[in-house]
């Protein structure tokens, strides 16, 4: 069965929907968690209002990152002109997989960044004087947590722009093989960054909370946070390696 423009459009539109839909879910929950804790802290410390709002807005902007990546990929899928039937089934699988990768890959980082921001607001409400230390640590933690969504974006862009077209003489077996490899690569990096992203956000959130309670131990808390986040990141890197192998070495 040959590929027509319509089939590539179906794959692109499906990929675009999956990507934005799933990515928005966690970004929304994360930002709501941050805003909820900010409102609660406002009640405890009305005088810290300005620094609370600043911290909340910065945190929400970083939490939004994954959803913005997904939006960019979705717009590329819809308007990027990937409808040349010469791409064949290879391209259809790559388009769908690009959407899955960035959509599912943004879930963990969204939850993690939101948790980190919420705990930071809570800590600022308790210790308004430590505002700068807490916000700084929150941003470092969120940046570490967002690494997963950046991995997913890279895999997604590679799937869109660096995958080969289907050769004219490809057998059915080769087509199935390559499509499965592309879909597997997208699923590997997508699901694989969920755990590490959420977990690094949890580490950063606990560190924010504790810097608010015990500001004197800041140095050793940040050291432990980095060490723990680095170890948690390892499985996301394994997933990235497997995704690259599936996309380029098959």
């Amino acid at each position: 069965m040959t590929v027509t423009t319509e089939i590539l459009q179906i794959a692109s539109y499906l990929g675009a929907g999956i990507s934005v839909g799933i990515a928005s879910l966690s970004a929304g929950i994360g930002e709501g968690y941050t805003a909820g804790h900010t409102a609660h802290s406002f009640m405890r410390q009305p005088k810290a209002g300005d620094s609370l709002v600043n911290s909340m807005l910065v945190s929400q902007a970083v939490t939004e990152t994954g959803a913005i990546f997904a939006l960019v990929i979705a717009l590329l899928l819809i308007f990027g002109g990937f409808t040349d039937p010469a791409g064949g089934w290879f391209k259809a699988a790559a388009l769908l997989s690009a959407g899955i990768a960035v959509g599912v890959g943004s879930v963990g980082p969204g939850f993690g960044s939101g948790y980190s921001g919420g705990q930071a607001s809570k800590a600022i409400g308790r210790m308004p004087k430590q505002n700068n230390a807490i916000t700084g640590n929150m941003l470092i933690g969120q940046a570490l947590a967002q690494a997963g969504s950046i991995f997913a974006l890279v895999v997604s862009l590679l799937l869109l722009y660096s995958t080969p077209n289907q050769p004219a003489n490809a057998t059915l077996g080769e087509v199935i093989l390559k499509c499965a490899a592309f879909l597997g690569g997208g699923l590997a990096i997508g699901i694989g960054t969920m755990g590490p992203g959420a977990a690094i956000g949890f580490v950063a959130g606990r560190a924010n909370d504790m810097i608010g309670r015990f500001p004197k131990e800041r140095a050793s808390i940040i050291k432990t946070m980095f060490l723990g986040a680095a170890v948690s990141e390892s499985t996301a890197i394994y997933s990235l390696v497997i995704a690259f192998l599936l996309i380029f070495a098959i």
Partner: protein
Amino acid sequence: MEQIARAAALLGAGICMGIGALGPGVGEGFVAGKACEGIARSPENASLITRTMLVGQAVSESTGIYSLVIALLLIFST
């Protein structure tokens, strides 16, 4: 038929590494978060807490490494 089996192996490798990375990631992050909390509360035990954290994370990591090994086997030896 052989290629369909291999295609299933490749799809399986992706799913295996993806879902296999979920558990260790969450687990290791939980350990690290609680270690931050412990060090803040009792700084004098910092080295003991860090050591326990790393041992716990190493054990949690094992299932992630199993997934990696199985994914590589599925890719290269089927």
